[in-house]
């Protein structure tokens, strides 16, 4: 099981975003149901631009996502799916890390066959240990 670990700055952004009551309320609403920015703006005693700013802060912290639907900007509380995607991506992270290590192996193996062999030319590869 791969668990997504947040970096310190990601945690800071998340807590910073949630330190505001309006923003907490927005997250709470859009986690239950997607809402357009204009519909959110109707609910709060503030301008459309101010609500949009709050949404931008939440978006930067990865707590909501924004998509366009015609003229409307739809806000969704995609916390779960973002973390889910992060987990899926980590599988491919492992694939590319392995490829990068194998590239280094190819370069090293070729270098040792061209040059006189080093005393310990161990063709080590990260084999998964038994047990």
């Amino acid at each position, binding site marked *: 099981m791969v668990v997504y670990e947040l970096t310190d700055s990601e945690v800071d952004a998340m807590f910073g975003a949630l330190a505001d009551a309006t923003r907490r309320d927005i997250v709470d609403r859009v986690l239950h149901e997607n809402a357009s920015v204009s519909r959110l703006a109707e609910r709060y005693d503030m301008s459309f631009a101010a609500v949009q700013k709050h949404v931008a802060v939440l978006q930067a912290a*990865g707590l909501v*996502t924004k998509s366009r639907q015609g003229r409307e900007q739809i806000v969704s509380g995609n916390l779960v*799916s*973002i*973390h*889910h*995607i*992060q987990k*899926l*991506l*980590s*599988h*491919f*992270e492992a*694939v*590319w*890390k*392995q*490829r*990068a*290590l*194998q*590239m*280094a*192996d*190819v*370069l*090293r193996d070729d*270098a040792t066959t061209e040059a006189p062999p080093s005393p310990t030319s161990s063709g080590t*590869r990260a*084999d998964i240990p038994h047990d």
Partner: protein
Amino acid sequence: MNVTTHTDPEALTLTTTTELAASLERAWQLVSDPRQLERWWGPPEWPATFVRYEFVPGGRAHYFMQGPDGERMHGMWRILSITEPREVSIEDEFADDQGEPSGDIGVTTALLTFEPIDGGTRLTILSGFASAEQLEEMVKMGMEEGMREAIGQIDALLSED
């Protein structure tokens, strides 16, 4: 050996950066020469063989990766652009055994950028996925392969006596 990665779940991209102890020209052969390429493309237990490789813009490649029980998984590339020896952009997707796209799961993209640095070459790989559903499918498939492999190993162990 230095490998760093960065994932962007909203953009559905993964960036891998590695510093290779080789000149730009030498590092470039890792991707321009199919015999070099197949030494790193597949995982150790699923080595890759490239049976077709047209390393030109608009060219295609066909490869298969062979698992421990002899099973083959086919894939194909479309080479979108090449700027020798700096940059190559490809699309990778599942294929049938003739190297024709199977249309399953969709296309992943990879942009490989080579740049000379002190004492070697920095390679940056930007890979992109089409959708969360595609990612999900690919991971599921990989897990099924892993599972099948584990079962195969158990079978082999049990049949040893």
